[in-house]
């Protein structure tokens, strides 16, 4: 008997190699044709704290975390109490534990999960250079039926540079763990992979956002490190350089966004990435981008808030600041990727939109997408590129109107180097000729224009991911989309039709399009990961939602699971 999905936690304090083993497990599964997702649970410690690699494998694409863990393998139990709530178990789960590390902590044992002993440390100790994580990897591989060939390729890739001894030690460890687990018959063998079909990628959300920036045409990035956004910047640093772009480490977030505005003012598409605290610091300059009509993209990889909050864990609670955080009437773009792979499309689209509409675009990713790695079908190429409308007729000496009140609201831009286009871009309110003005008529005209260029643009079908039909609908966004999609599909598999609407274009709102997507719906469930139901209130403020509206909203750091959404949907039927 095989299973369609298996969820595994590799647990150990820093140095045990849980993350490495999890990474290798995911890579090996990808090699043999499975799909998968690996997220990480870590504390705020840099080294030596608790660490868990959370892996879900399946023959079909994985949208979110599993309902429960089927397998927990622990190299030690240090600090597991800190994140035990992130490790839901059932009586069907299996806890693999090293007897030398003591009893299974009560907080986990209480689940009634089956316990299996594996002398991990002893087995590793018998091997010169042996490591516990390789023994654990071998055991898990045997349990799920992962072919050895998949692991061999990973070992070669990961350890090739370290030489034969390291490879032999790893192989011996894997063999030892595998041999012990071979006879357990836990019933967790994964269904055979389907190797046919599209090329698959192994990518994290943060890497995907970086690639989206490149594909959109970004050539400049100013960066200030912050968890959990740093990997975007680290990925862009070498890769921007390879494509002729530049990344500069700035002194703070204020400088990061300001440098991006400067580069963009000079005509070079620019991006920065940050997390909540950094977004707070950037908001004044984002407003400058709105008023001066300077395009820029800010990827906000959300984490638990407010203040410094929970930096290593996920939440969707920057929605309010992203949409409403700027002072004055400051319409701008806010988009949210709906999956790890979609971080690519959505960031690329954001670059395109920011340039086309000459305004800042905030991409709301989050830790659950950004720092998770997935095996996905290679994302389709999107046509979206940075393409700023440049002025061609500059009208002669002193005649150019940078902020001309055009029908679309987009004014042809002149950038340095274009003779005749000299003007001063301004955060002060200004007249069409870019000169500062505090006149009521100029203020009204520019406010109208800046709003109109956003509301009159045709965003096409990309505004949301929509699937399914029926009278019940889940409306969601961001990384809550994965578990919501899985819940809707479960409902459908059991015979109840349901729809999923995952809104990618948060702002400007698309009332007519959502009304069409929800036509005939009698029950709406809003799903989001915030304490204050920010998304629900946002929807209520801007849309007419049909029928009876319910909300599933709770804060991080616990990920939203398909089971929870599914149960909520069942309670509504």
């Amino acid at each position, binding site marked *: 008997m095989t299973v369609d999905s298996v969820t595994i936690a590799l647990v150990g304090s820093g140095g045990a190699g849980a993350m490495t083993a999890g990474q290798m497990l995911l890579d090996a599964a990808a090699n043999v044709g499975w799909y998968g997702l690996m997220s990480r649970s870590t504390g705020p410690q840099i080294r030596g704290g608790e660490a868990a690699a959370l892996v879900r494998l399946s023959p079909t694409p994985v949208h979110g975390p599993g309902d429960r863990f089927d397998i927990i393998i622990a190299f030690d139990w240090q600090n597991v109490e800190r994140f035990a709530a992130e490790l839901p178990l059932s009586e069907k789960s299996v806890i693999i534990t090293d007897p030398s590390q003591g009893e299974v902590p009560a907080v986990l044992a209480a689940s009634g999960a089956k316990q299996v002993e594996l002398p991990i440390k002893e087995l590793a100790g018998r091997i010169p250079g042996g490591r516990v994580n390789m023994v654990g990897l071998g055991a898990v591989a045997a349990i799920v039926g992962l072919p050895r060939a998949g692991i061999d390729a990973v070992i070669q890739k990961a350890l090739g540079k370290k030489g034969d001894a390291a490879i032999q030690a790893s192989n011996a460890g894997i063999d030892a763990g595998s041999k012990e687990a071979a006879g357990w018959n836990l019933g967790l063998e994964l269904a055979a992979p389907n190797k046919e079909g599209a090329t698959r990628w192994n990518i994290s959300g943060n890497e995907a956002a970086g690639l989206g920036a490149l594909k959109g045409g970004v050539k400049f990035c100013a960066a200030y490190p912050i968890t959990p956004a740093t990997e975007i910047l680290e990925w862009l640093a070498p890769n921007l350089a390879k494509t002729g772009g530049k990344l500069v480490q700035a002194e703070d977030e204020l*400088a990061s966004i300001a440098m991006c505005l400067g580069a963009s003012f000079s005509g070079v598409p620019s991006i920065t990435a940050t997390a909540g605290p950094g977004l707070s610091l950037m908001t004044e300059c984002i407003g400058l981008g709105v008023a001066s009509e300077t395009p820029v993209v800010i990827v906000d990889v959300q984490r638990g808030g407010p203040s410094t909050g929970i930096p290593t864990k996920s939440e969707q609670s920057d929605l309010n600041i992203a949409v409403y955080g700027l002072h004055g009437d400051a319409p701008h773009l806010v988009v949210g990727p709906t999956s790890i792979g979609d971080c690519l499309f959505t960031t690329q689209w954001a670059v395109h939109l920011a340039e086309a509409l000459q305004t800042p675009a905030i991409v709301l990713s989050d830790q659950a997408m950004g720092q998770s790695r997935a095996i996905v079908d290679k994302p389709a190429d999107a046509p979206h590129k940075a393409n700023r409308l440049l002025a061609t007729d500059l009208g002669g000496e002193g005649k150019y109107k940078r902020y001309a009140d055009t029908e679309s609201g987009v004014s042809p831009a002149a950038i340095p180097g274009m003779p005749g286009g000299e003007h001063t871009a301004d955060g002060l309110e200004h007249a069409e000729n870019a000169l500062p003005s505090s006149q009521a008529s100029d203020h009204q005209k520019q406010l109208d224009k800046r709003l109109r260029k956003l509301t009159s643009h045709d965003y096409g079908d990309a505004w949301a991911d929509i699937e399914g039909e029926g009278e019940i609908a889940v409306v969601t966004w961001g990384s809550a989309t994965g578990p919501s999609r899985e819940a809707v599909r479960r409902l459908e598999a059991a015979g109840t039709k349901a729809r999923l609407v995952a809104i990618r274009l948060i702002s400007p709102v698309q009332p007519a399009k959502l009304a069409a997507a929800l036509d005939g719906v009698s029950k709406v469930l809003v799903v989001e990961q915030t304490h204050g139901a920010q998304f629900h209130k946002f929807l209520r403020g801007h849309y007419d939602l049909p029928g009876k509206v319910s909300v599933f909203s709770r804060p991080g750091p616990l990920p939203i699971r398909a089971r929870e959404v599914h149960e909520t949907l069942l309670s509504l039927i």
Partner: protein
Amino acid sequence: MDTHLTDDVVGPLPGDYKSDVKPIWCPGCGDYSVLAGITRAMANMGLERHDTVVVSGIGCSSRIPAYTSVYGYHTVHGRSLAVASGVKLARPELNVLIFGGDGDGFSIGGNHFLHACRRNVDMTYIVMDNQVYGMTKGQASPTTEADWCESKLTPEGPGVNPIQPVALALACGANFVARGFSNNPNEVARLIVEGVKHPGFSVIHILSPCVTFRPEQRGWKSTVHPYGREPTDDPNEAMRAVLEDDGFGLGIFLAGNRRPFQPGSTATHSIAQIEEGFAV
């Protein structure tokens, strides 16, 4: 000096770099003369207007971009150096100048000033120091004396020592540091020309009186004096001289030889090649 700072040379004239916008400054403001010095410097160098970008923050002197006829970016309080760094790093071929005041540059923008000095991007910062916030009607700035009691916000005086911009610039590693006085636009222009020509980040500190909130600054005419030494390329020597000076010495303190910061950008890979790294 091989520069020609009169209005009758062949080539562009200072007026070519002025816009027809009337400054909002008070009568007698020192910034009028600085603006004259700036346009003379631009004319002297024959800068292409379309290849020149001026960036400013917020405050009286930060209004200057609107009064010039080159490309400008009037940004937000304190961020002008960061915005300008973005311009120059992204488009190294452009001439980049930054205008601002003492509050904008050394208070809210203090962190950016520190890092602009150490980063050494090839651009020129002209900071007009009147030791007061004029735009918000007369509060103490970071260069105001500790016992200045004329502000309603600090009626007993700010109570803290003023910073010394030239010493600060040197301490932060600026590559070219000079001081001028607005009353002499030709000298201001000469300093700007030297600063622009010098590779790396140049700081031109200009004493520019606010006769509205600090009328006693009219007396600066008799306070300023030539600094009296030739420019050095040794930051330590420059610092010793600055510390011996009374803060009113005019001239070029340092013309250093640090290499400007400018990351290269030659494409070596296609995006398709980069994408291949993700394939399973």
